[in-house]
Every structure is written in structure tokens, then in C-alpha cells.
């Protein structure tokens, strides 16, 4: 069993509802918080940034309080977070943020700064003394079991089988705590230009070499795709039609 002095932190961010854009607790971070609370009754729940109202959601999901590490606009959250969680045994977070860049690199950067191992795509976490055993997500029903020595950074996969409960009474009882400001390095000037995502991104494809008529034929052929109806023929022919469709679209490997 876990020694009582184990210090566990859950890093939480402000997420974003995909339909409305409304700020909310990031679903992936909620899973991390829930996993942390299952490991220890006391968890330091940390957020680098403003004391946004969406953080109250984490109180509803079971955080006794959320400690807000103030972060000047345009500053890098890494340094204050690394300073705050230094000395912790386990740092949990979601694999990918819902708002902001969502590159999913923070756990790796934090692990490097703290010289800890980092495991992502975690579904389940078990503590075994000074090690953590992690069941990792792999696609198509595969799971991998990995052990790391503590202290470690673990990023939860969005499909982690947890059922966090939103409890209003717990929201009512919790508090947002303001931590003293820590030194944060400014982020380097961003080369990125962001725009509202209205246009579909263009696929990278070879330059068109076909001539006009062939291109036209190609365009017609792709538009009439889908909705095929197989009515006639024997059952075997129908089965073959299904297999042909699956093969043509590379949905099966045989």
C-alpha cells in the first residue's frame, strides 16, 4: 500500500466546450484529478494562470481547493509549475489541453525540468511502494503495462475509464486559493498566426498532372461515392461486395 507521506499533485487547466467555446474544466484534466483523488485523499490541485470561474468545476469534481499560480499574460507556465511541484512524488495531468495550443508537450517539458520519467496515455495507475504501475492505452483494444519509479509525471488518456462526479455540494464547499506569484519566463515570440477555423484544411497531395478531361472524370467519380445499394445476386455475391468495399477502403487487412 501507499505510504501516507506521498505527495500527489494534479495539474488542471481551463478547457473549452467544443460547441459553444464556453470555458469549462478540461475533460482530460478532470480525469487526472479523479485518478489522483483515487490514489490519495489529499491532492494539491494546481492551475497556472488566472483564477477563472471554470476552475470551480474542479471543486465540483472533488478538489478540496484549487491553488492558482498567477501567471502574467504571455508567460510560460513551466517554471512556476516546476517550482511548485518540486518535491512531489506524483504529478498527474491530462494528456492534451482543450484550450490554447493543446500540443500535449507540457508533461514532457515538466518531466525534463524536474528530471522525472514521464508516461502518457495512462488509463489506470496503481502505486506500488516507490513505483507506479500504469496501464497505457494502445489502439484496437491493446493495453500496455508500464512501471516507472517515483517521482514521475503521468498524463492521463482521454479514454481513462473513470467516472468523475460533478457534485454541487462539493463546489459549494471548496475554495480557489491564490498562491504568491512565482517567477515565470516569458514565452518566446510566437511564430504562429491563429485564425478562426472555418475553412477545411487542405490535404497534402501530389501536383495534378492529369489533363483537363481526365481531371473532370476524376472529379465526377469522387463525387458519386457512397450510398451504393446491392440488391441482386446470391448471398455469397453480397458478402463479396461487402468484403470488396472493406478492402477498397483499406478497412481490413486481408
Amino acid at each position: 500500500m501507499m505510504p501516507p507521506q506521498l505527495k500527489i499533485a494534479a495539474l488542471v487547466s481551463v478547457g473549452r466546450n467544443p460547441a459553444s467555446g464556453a470555458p469549462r474544466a478540461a475533460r482530460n484534466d478532470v480525469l487526472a484529478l479523479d485518478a489522483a483523488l483515487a490514489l490519495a485523499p489529499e491532492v494539491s490541485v494546481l492551475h497556472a494562470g488566472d483564477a477563472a470561474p471554470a476552475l470551480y468545476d474542479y471543486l465540483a469534481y472533488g478538489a478540496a481547493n484549487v491553488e492558482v499560480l498567477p501567471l502574467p499574460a504571455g508567460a510560460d507556465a513551466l517554471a512556476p509549475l516546476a517550482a511548485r511541484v518540486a518535491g512531489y512524488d506524483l504529478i498527474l495531468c491530462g494528456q492534451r489541453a482543450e484550450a490554447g495550443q493543446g500540443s500535449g508537450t507540457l508533461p514532457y517539458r515538466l518531466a525534463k525540468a524536474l528530471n522525472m520519467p514521464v508516461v502518457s496515455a495512462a488509463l489506470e495507475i496503481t502505486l506500488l511502494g516507490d513505483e507506479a504501475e500504469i496501464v497505457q492505452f494502445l489502439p484496437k483494444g491493446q493495453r500496455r503495462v508500464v512501471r516507472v519509479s517515483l517521482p514521475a509525471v503521468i498524463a492521463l488518456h482521454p479514454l481513462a475509464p473513470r467516472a468523475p462526479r460533478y457534485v454541487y455540494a462539493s463546489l459549494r464547499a471548496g475554495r480557489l486559493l491564490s498562491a504568491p506569484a512565482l517567477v515565470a519566463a516569458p514565452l518566446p515570440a510566437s511564430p504562429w498566426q491563429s485564425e478562426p477555423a472555418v475553412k477545411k484544411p487542405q490535404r497534402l497531395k501530389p501536383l495534378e498532372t492529369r489533363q483537363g478531361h481526365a481531371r473532370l472524370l476524376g472529379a465526377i467519380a469522387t463525387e458519386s461515392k457512397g450510398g451504393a445499394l446491392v440488391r441482386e445476386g446470391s448471398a455469397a455475391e453480397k458478402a463479396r461486395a461487402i468484403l470488396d468495399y472493406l478492402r477498397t477502403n483499406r478497412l481490413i487487412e486481408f
Partner: protein
Amino acid sequence: MHSLDHLVTLFFWLAVAALAFGTMRRARLWRAGAAAPFNWAQLLTVPRRYLVDVHHVVARDPYIARTHMLVAGGAVAAMALVALNYGLMLYRPLLNGALVLAAAVMLGGSYLVWQRRRAPLPRLSAGPWNRLPYTLAAFAFGLLALALLPSALLSGFFAALIMLALLAGTAELVLGIGTGGPMKHAVAGVLHLAFHPRAERFAPRAERFAMRSTALRPLDLAAPVLGVEKPTDFRWNQLLGFDACVQCGKCEAACPAFAAGQPLNPKKFIQDMVLGLSGGSDAAFAGSPYPGITLGGHSGGPEEPILPALLAPETLWSCTTCRACVEECPMQIEHVDAIIDLRRFQTLARGALPGKGPEMLGNLRETATQGGYDNAARYHWAVDLNVRQIRPGESVDVLLVAGEGAFDMRYQRSLRALVKLLQAASVDFAILGALEVDTGDTARRLGDEATFQAQAVRLIATLSTLTFGRILTADPHVFHSLKNEYPALGGHFTVLHHTVFLAGLASSGQLKLGATSETRTITYHDPCYLGRYNGETEAPRALLRQIGVRLTEMERSGLRGRCCGGGGGAPLTDIPGTQRIPDIRIADARATGAGLVAVACPGCTAMLEGVVGPRPEVIDVAELLAAALEGQA
């Protein structure tokens, strides 16, 4: 031989003492509940409430109405006469003559009770209730013999026999309240009528029609306990109400969840709440269990959490809040209020909401829609209809509020039909557009009062910036919450359901309707939140008559209509049963031979259309009317 008379006097006062003692004992259990307003003067309302309101419900079953009139009337008269003649030691033969009459009436009634219980309906409880005809008859017989036969003529043996019969009958009548026997209902029932949690239910008829007292009470979100965790968290008059139950099972027979084999039985639920307040196991319950849950596995006490020891969560989440049980209950018990109180604690203090409930609540908080849609898309169905959108500063007569159905492609057809009708009648109307947020009604039924109040405050704030005469909606759930539940939160609006509004337009001639071309047999399904919750059963029928439809009514219709299964968030919690509620309702419709079911609610439309296999077509009243508009091809 005066000694027998004196013995009866002594016996009478002993019985009075036992009754008083028992009542006080029981009252102690009720008083453990939370505070509620109390005024002794309320007792004066009992005769009227009993003779008018209770009778109104009981009279639906003339046999039991007559039976109860004879038994209870005879018993009350007899006891009053015993009190007068023996209690006050008058011993007048004339009064004894009257006593003979009263006892005979009661004896006749007891015979009817006996008849009823020879082949009892499955909804009735057995157990101690089966002895009732005998103990009541013994009481009546004892009084009859006492009053009829001069005591001088009685042999000692016969006198002892009479006294024994009287003793048995009296024990049933006066010890019931203290021991929780069947006759508990008499005392608790009287007190329950006096101190009923919804006094508005007994308002004079006209007022009652305008406001059927179906709104839920707002919950103080700062209260130490949110909702009800243990029996003593109920208000004391709710506990008293549970004790009034006579286990007649009318609620059980009306409950759609019970019929569908979901683990809910309103009668058992009330009896479980009684167990909770008095303590004990449900092994002795003598009625139908919750479908799929065997008896004896649940027990509780006044300070024990009700879930899951006393009540399985599946039972709590099976309820569709259709109020069929409340409508049927002769004792005017408020089952749905108790369900919601329990749900409030489970949702707000435990977050223990099953199925897709939590997802829907999250959607509401984040998108102001139940389905997690982009709220700006709520009125996309109206873009090509040339409909005005309301703006602050511009006044309009009728404001159309679409509700969640606006995101459902099926119900958009109904909404478009409604717009067509409004335009045909030259109504000055506008839509709420992207300003609209969900009313929070479903959140409230699922116990999430916090989300409901947040939505309500938001919607009220929006509406208060706008200038309009009336709100019109095609969704009875929107209608109910805006009309009946928003006032308590400061939102006072005139709200109309589309059937009521259109009926008004049609009768004034503003809306010119022709005859329908529909030749199929048509039946009408009453939405619970329009019919039972708001008493509106006539307007849709009047409209259908106007276009020449001759309705074939289903067995359960009007105020006693059967739920489609879509209320109370039940499609979200989705508790499995042996069949689905909408399948039962469609079977009701099929039984009438109907080829078309007219509806007036997006929830009912979705539920009934979700029935697979051949079934009558489901069409909103507005669509039928739009197709029958005068002067169209």
C-alpha cells in the same frame, strides 16, 4: 344492569386515551422531520377538503366511494354517539336507537369491504388489510348488539362476547395509529388533509384550474442539506402525508414505469418512506414489489440514508414525473415531490446521476442546450421563414420560445407548421433566436436545482430586457416551467401553449381553418406537462374538432392520460424494464384502431416515433392544422 354501560364508558375513555397516546407517539415520528408552517386552524379545512377534494378522486370508483361512505360515515357517527351516550354517561335509549342505525350502516359497509377483498385486485395490499372487513364488522356488530339488546337480557357469556367484538374492533380503530396498522390512515389522513404541503391544491375550483399546484418548490442552494438524504430531511408534513397512504394501489395501476416493468411502484415507494420514518425492513410489505426487486432486501430508519439501503437508485431514477400517481391518489399524497427531494440530494450532494444525465447537465452548463449543440443554431429551422427576431427596444405581442425541440429535425417540422399558422393568422410575433437558453426544466426534474436556477436566472434576465406581451411555446415542458416555476424565481410572464393560443385564434376567427383531408382514425395523446400539470386537455381537442376530426379517445386520456415515457429526464437515466413506456402508449393508440396519433409536445413526438415496427403516424396538432389552413391548395 348498569355495570355493562359503565364498563363501556370506561372502555370508551380508555380507547380515547389509547388513541391520543398512539397519535402522540406517531406525531413524534412526524415531528422529527424538517420544519414546515403549522397552524391549528388548518384543521377547520378538513371537512371541506375531505368531502370535496378527496371525494372527487374517490368517486371515480363508485363502488369504493359508496363503501367508504358507509363504513367511515357509519363509524364516525357511531363513535360520536358512543362518545355522547357512553362517554358523557347519558345512557339515553334514544341515542342508542341512533347508534343502532349508525352501526347497521357500518356493518353494511363492512360487508362491501369484505366483498371487495374476496377477489382482490392485484393493486390492493394484503396482509393486515385483509383482516379489516372482519374487525370493522366486529366493531359494528358489537355496537349493534350493545345498543339493540337491553343489557338486562344479556347473559354473562353473551355480554363478554359483545365486549370481545367491541374490543377487537376498537383495537383496530384506535391502536392503528400508534402501531402503524391499517387504520393509521384515518388519523394521519385527516391531519394530512389539514396540513397538506400543497395547500393550493384545495383552492376553489376556478383558481385551481388556473394553477394546478404542480410547480416544484425552489430549493435553497445554501441549505446545509441539499434535498433529502434521510427520512428526517423531509418536511414533517411530507412524513405525515406518507402515513396517510391506504395502500389502495391506484398509483400503482396508473404508473407507466411500473407497467413497463421498471423497478418502481409508487405505492411501495410511499410505504418505503413510511418504513424510513418508523424504521424496519420491507419484508412484511403485502403488495406488489418493485418489478425485478425482491422483498426483504431493503430496510431503513429515520436517521439512515434512504439510498441505497431503503431504496434502490434504479427505483428513484425510473420515475417520469408524470404525476399519474398523484392524480389518482385519493389521499392526495405527493409522490413526485418526494422523488424530486431525493433526487436533489443524489444529484447535488452525491453527483450520483445515472446514464446520460450527467452529460446533459454538463451540456446545459456549458452550451445552454441539453444536447450540447451550438446555441446559435437553435433557430436555424426558421431562417427561410421570414420570421422576425426580437430585439431589445422593439415590442412584439407574441414571443415564440422553441425549447430543445428546435434542435430536433423532426420537431422542426412542427415548429415550421406553427409559424405558418401564426403568419396565416397575421399574429404579431417574433422568435427569441440565439438569445434563448434552455429553461433548465429537465435539470430540475433530475434534481439539479443549481443548474436549473442558473438557467432560469439567465433566461429571466434575458426576457426582462425584451418587450413582449405573451410567450408562446410548443413545448409543454417549457410552458410549465416558464408559467408555473419561474414566478418563484422572479420571472412573471404570460405563457401560452400553442394549442391554447391557436384555439383562441380559431374561435375568434382570426385563424381560418378548413377541413382536414385526413381520413385515418385519429386519437390524441395528452402530454403530461400540458394535461395533468396544467389542466389543459380541451384546447387541442377543440382545435381538432374544428378541422373536422372526430377523435377516438384512448382508454387513458385527458387528466388521466398515460405518459409517453419522456418526462422527468427518464430517457436520459434510461432505467431498463421489461418493455418501454412508449411501446405501451402506442399499444393504447393501436387499440383504438387509430392510424394517426395527434400530439402536442416534442418529447412525446420523439418518444412515440421511437417505437419501431408498424405503428400509427405521430403528428403534432400544429401540423394537422397547417395542412387544413383555409385557402391553400
